[in-house]
């Protein structure tokens, strides 16, 4: 789960990390008033869960009230990569001499946390990470002890941070690590950490919380903004499905992440284009199956649906009932549905399935090929 920039900044500031003076506005008047109070120049920044806000026109630097009004008018309510901007952060513009990077994340290969520091902060840090990994100093942390002070000093020294700010950067890194640990962070980042007048200030803030740990982070759980960029993804959140919308026209429903991914790959392999990833999860009952069909039917790009269930804890008879129930509500089936059931109670399921409503195939390969062909027929 992602925090908004202003939420992450509050968390960081409370822990003692220097941040620029700022406040959140929901209306244009509010934004101008706050800008006047803070004093120009100020930055007006869209608060949405989208990367690359600056390049997309979601951040503007303004020098007076008229410019502030103009910027707030253009940003508030704008559509930023599918997300509507409801809030802006109005923030003191910081003059800087250098842009640094500090971050903490879990290194999954090492199975332990890693703290990172670089002198190459700014918009291109991902490129730096990919092309010059040695430009980012990395320090693995023993989760049983937490980060030692010397490790922060070592990372800062290895990164080649100027002596004037070295102890400040080390202290920011230590605080960031402690926040990450205390609040079940997935990723915590300050990019850039600006250097000005021999001091540092966090000009941006990222804090992603481990979604599986939200049960013990009630204060952060409350901040969750479930606004999804896509209507169908929002609907999937509501139904509790793992769902990702893609661009093709073959709808896919299955159980288990690996098998659903494989079904997508097979659609591609047989010349079709997958419209989505939808995992109904383990042990799905009839109503959940009906909800899944509803989801995929409501995607207007979908021309045919392949339903692939391999029952372990999910029972084929339950799935078949769900499919019959969902399709029984229609006078004519909106889109052709191809079903393949295997595993637990698959035979019972096949008998229950109403073959006047669906096409049944015995193998995964045959089911995918049939769905690709059916989708092609619709487009032709």
């Amino acid at each position: 789960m992602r925090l908004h920039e202003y939420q992450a900044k509050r968390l960081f500031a409370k822990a003692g990390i220097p941040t620029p003076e700022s406040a959140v506005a929901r209306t244009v008047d509010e934004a101008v008033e706050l800008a006047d109070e803070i004093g120009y120049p100020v930055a007006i920044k869209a608060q949405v869960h989208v990367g690359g806000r600056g390049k997309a026109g979601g951040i503007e630097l303004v020098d007076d009230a008229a410019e502030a009004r103009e910027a707030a008018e253009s940003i508030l309510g704008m559509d930023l990569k599918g997300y509507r901007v409801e809030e802006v952060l109005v923030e003191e513009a910081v003059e800087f001499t250098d842009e640094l990077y500090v971050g903490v994340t879990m290194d999954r290969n090492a199975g332990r946390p890693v703290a990172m520091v670089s002198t190459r902060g700014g918009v291109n840090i991902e490129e730096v990470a990919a092309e010059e990994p040695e430009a980012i100093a990395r320090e693995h942390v023993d989760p049983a002890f937490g980060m030692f002070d010397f490790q922060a000093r070592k990372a800062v020294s290895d990164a080649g941070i100027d002596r004037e700010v070295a102890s400040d950067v080390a202290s920011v890194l230590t605080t960031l690590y402690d926040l990450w640990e205390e609040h079940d962070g997935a990723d915590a980042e300050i990019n850039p950490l600006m250097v000005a007048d021999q001091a540092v200030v966090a000009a941006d803030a990222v804090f992603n919380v481990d979604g599986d740990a939200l049960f013990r982070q009630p204060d952060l759980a409350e901040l969750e903004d479930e606004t999804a960029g896509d209507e169908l993804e929002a609907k999937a959140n509501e139904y509790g499905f793992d769902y990702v919308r893609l661009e093709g026209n073959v709808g896919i429903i299955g159980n288990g992440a690996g098998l659903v991914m494989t079904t997508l790959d097979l659609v591609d392999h047989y010349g079709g284009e997958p419209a989505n990833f939808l995992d109904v999860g383990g042990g799905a009952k009839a109503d959940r199956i009906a909800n899944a069909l509803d989801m995929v039917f409501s995607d207007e790009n979908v021309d045919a649906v392949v339903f692939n269930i391999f029952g372990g804890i999910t029972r084929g008879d339950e799935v078949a009932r769900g499919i019959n129930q969902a399709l029984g509500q229609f006078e004519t089936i909106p889109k052709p549905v191809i079903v393949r059931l295997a595993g637990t109670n698959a035979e019972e399921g096949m008998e229950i399935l109403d073959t006047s409503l669906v096409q049944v195939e015995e193998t995964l390969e045959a089911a995918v090929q049939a769905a690709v062909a059916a989708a092609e027929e619709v487009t032709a």
Partner: protein
Amino acid sequence: MSVLVDADTRVVVQGITGGEGRFHTEQMLDYGTNVVAGAVPGKGGQEVDGVPVYDTVSRAVREEDADASVVFVPPAFAGDALFEALDAGVDLVVAITEGIPTQDMSRVYRRLGETDTYLIGPNCPGIITPGEAKLGILPGNIFSPGNVGLISRSGTLTYQIVDNLTKRGIGQSTAVGIGGDPIIGTDFIAALELFEADPATDAIVMCGEIGGEDEEEAAAYIGEQMETPVAGFIAGRTAPPGKRMGHAGAIVSGSGTGTAQSKIDALEAAGVPVGDTPEEVADSVESLL
């Protein structure tokens, strides 16, 4: 012979009195698994399906000589349950639980390194030696005894591949679902080492998916150190970067690591045929045997 579990494995089920624990204990017993105890705090003295329940894992180990644990404990308490299993000194822990906080797993993983215990999972379907024992939630009826080892990050994909093998009369020595989380106990390399050392395994199928670099590291290991032939499959070729495909670990990062293509390339460079479909994987296995 087999890997990690057989008919003699003595199993304690942590969380045996919960819905899932109870249901799958019954299924494991039906399959022939030697479930000797359950462990649930505060439930000592009860019985589930004739299996005695103890308050602690160490007591279950002491009283019933359990040497393996299966964990069905809810995510908020699972980290503690795993520490308890490691403390009790069992040889094998199978963690079925999905959704354990990553930082908890990081600490468990760190503790695991100080023990000789094998941890399978978490967020996995478990491990099965067909005809002998299953520890976890795998549907026993689709497996058949044989000489092919199987290692997979995904549950239902394992079933799919096994089905393709079984339908051709190719049985399995042991199948291990290693789990779909970012931090897991036994990774591909550790599982491959076990199968390499198992005289009953003549070929291995390794099913990977997008995310992380485990498959690439395993490919290097196969190329340098293994005699047993391996066939591969990688799920997630069509996954877009930055989107989590169900499993917490199944994500192609923004910087382009963890892609299906890099895993396929690494495996093929190590001489591992990678099928485009589960049927093609079965074809490869047939020709390797």
